[in-house]
């Protein structure tokens, strides 16, 4: 009998335990629908990517998961319970940290203060110190600029800070929105290498990207969004070879 629980599709995805599932999600800005019926699942330990062109609803989906916007319909289930109605700070407390679109670092605070705020809800001082070391190891540039005001950092450094700040919350699930946006190619590689490292250190990652090629290279599974609806999904390796995807998003 015990085998039956494992067969239930809502608990397992791609041979993994489901960490987060989004079902039939509708999100509106005023009267404009940004997300129209998106369903997706993220398994523990995966890197899942959400790709698609500008305005496809990728960022809106992430913002809904982290409680910044309320869905009009549909549900967001994390570790077996619905979080769609929780306020943002409770979602962070549940272990979902979000590095948002446009970085949204605190420009008038130092790098250190920004990273400290990432650990705002944590009470384990020793763990926070350890994670600070870990983040500074991942991004040595931040270590050099630790007492500098975040607003004076370069775009790439701000991006590292945004990712590092999200990691300081010790997330179970890390939401990354366009981490490669506006970065020099060298830094793009660095960021994607880092995402893999973060996953290998035990954090599940849901990655939103316009740079579909790089995203598909690093991800296990991918969803393709187009004007608010799911167009395609599949293992990232397969999608990278898919003709339709290649033509539409990879410039091939």
């Amino acid at each position, binding site marked *: 009998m015990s085998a039956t629980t494992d067969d239930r599709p809502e608990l397992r995805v791609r041979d993994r335990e489901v960490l987060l599932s989004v079902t039939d999600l509708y999100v509106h800005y005023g009267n404009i629908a940004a997300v129209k019926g998106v369903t997706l699942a993220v398994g523990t330990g995966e890197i899942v990517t959400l790709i698609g062109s500008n305005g496809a609803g990728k960022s809106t989906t992430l913002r809904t998961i*982290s*409680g*910044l916007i309320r869905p009009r319909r549909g549900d967001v289930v994390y570790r077996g319970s619905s979080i769609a109605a929780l*306020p*943002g*700070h409770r979602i*962070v*407390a549940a272990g979902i*940290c*979000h590095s*948002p679109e*446009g970085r*949204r*670092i*605190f*420009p*008038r*605070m130092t790098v250190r*203060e920004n990273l*400290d*705020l*990432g650990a*705002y*809800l944590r009470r384990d001082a020793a763990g926070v110190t350890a994670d600070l070391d870990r983040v500074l190891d991942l991004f040595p540039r931040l270590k050099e600029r630790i007492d500098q005001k975040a*607003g004076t950092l370069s*775009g790439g450094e*701000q991006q590292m800070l945004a990712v590092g*700040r*999200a990691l300081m*919350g010790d997330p179970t699930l890390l939401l990354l929105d366009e981490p490669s946006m506006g970065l020099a190619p060298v830094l793009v590689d660095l960021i994607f290498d880092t995402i893999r490292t973060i996953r290998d250190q035990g954090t599940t990652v849901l990655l939103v990207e316009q740079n579909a090629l790089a995203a598909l290279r690093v991800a296990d599974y991918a969803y393709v969004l187009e004007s608010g609806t799911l167009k395609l999904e599949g293992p990232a390796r397969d999608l990278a070879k898919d003709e339709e995807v290649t033509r539409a998003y990879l410039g091939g």
Partner: protein
Amino acid sequence: MSQTAEAHAPRSRSLPAPRVLLEKATGLGLVAILGLWLVVQLVRTPERFAGALVEGVNVGAIYALIALGYTLVYGIIELINFSHGDLFMLSTVLGAFVVITVFGATSPTLGGFGVLALGLVVTMTLAATVNVAAERLAYRRLRKAPKLAPLITAVGLSFVYQWGGVRTNGSGQKTWDSLLGDSGFTVAGISVPWSMVLVTGVTIPLLMLMMWIVQNTRQGKAMRATAQDQDAARLMGIDVDRTIAFTFAVGGALAGAAGVLYLQTVENTRWDAGFRLGLYAFTAAVLGGIGRLDGAVLGGFLIGIIQNLNDSGMLPFGQKWSQTVVFTILIMLMVFRPEGLLGRPTTEKV
């Protein structure tokens, strides 16, 4: 965002436009003339000058307390809370009720000071509660509305508070005895009222406590983060609603303290006392750079000092022009330095 904005509009290294230069020169020129005039007065009548300074610091401390309420709220939700002056007025009435009507404390005894301390705590608590209630019932619902809506609401609340003032304090001015009266002491020919020692003795620790809260506590960190970016603060796990309510509580408590202390120096209040004082304090907040706590304190003391220098004839205008002088400062600031003395130019804001 600020980065890209700067990138699109590179600042030229050459001289700024002649118009800007002229504006700057005019502004600095006016300040220089004023400064020179004051130096002349200082040399001619040093004791009167010092006396005006002392009085200025005294009222300035109260302006600073009120100005902080404006600047805290503006800093966190960019609302100019026009009802704040009237909350201060309600605090004067409430403070008088607790200190004098209930306990009859009008003499500088140990018990009298005990009652004053109690009056401070009660008034600060109630003013904080009223401010939080206003946020909860009115401003929170309007947070996503166009900016004019909360502003008009604040003006409306201001009438509500004034009505409260009329109901409790009457439609005329009421005089209340202070603990220390006109007693004072003289240092080097300058008479210092004891009430000033009381006011600054309460205000300065309060200001320091507040700065410490904002700079060093968890709650203060949450306030600063929320002020810079509400959504980003949410993503850090900060309860933004609670943080904003806390900010209103701190601002209200400071207005409460200002109300009690005001009565101890001015000894009277009226339902419209918050209007003028509120505008003075608002000017102080703008002078220092609205949104900046240190700016509000600096602005408060500066406005207090300027007003008293003028009241005592140290400026060439005379007492009946004091309001004009203060609001001229406000207008000149808008023209020459809209970001205030300590503020950043607003273009830098994200």
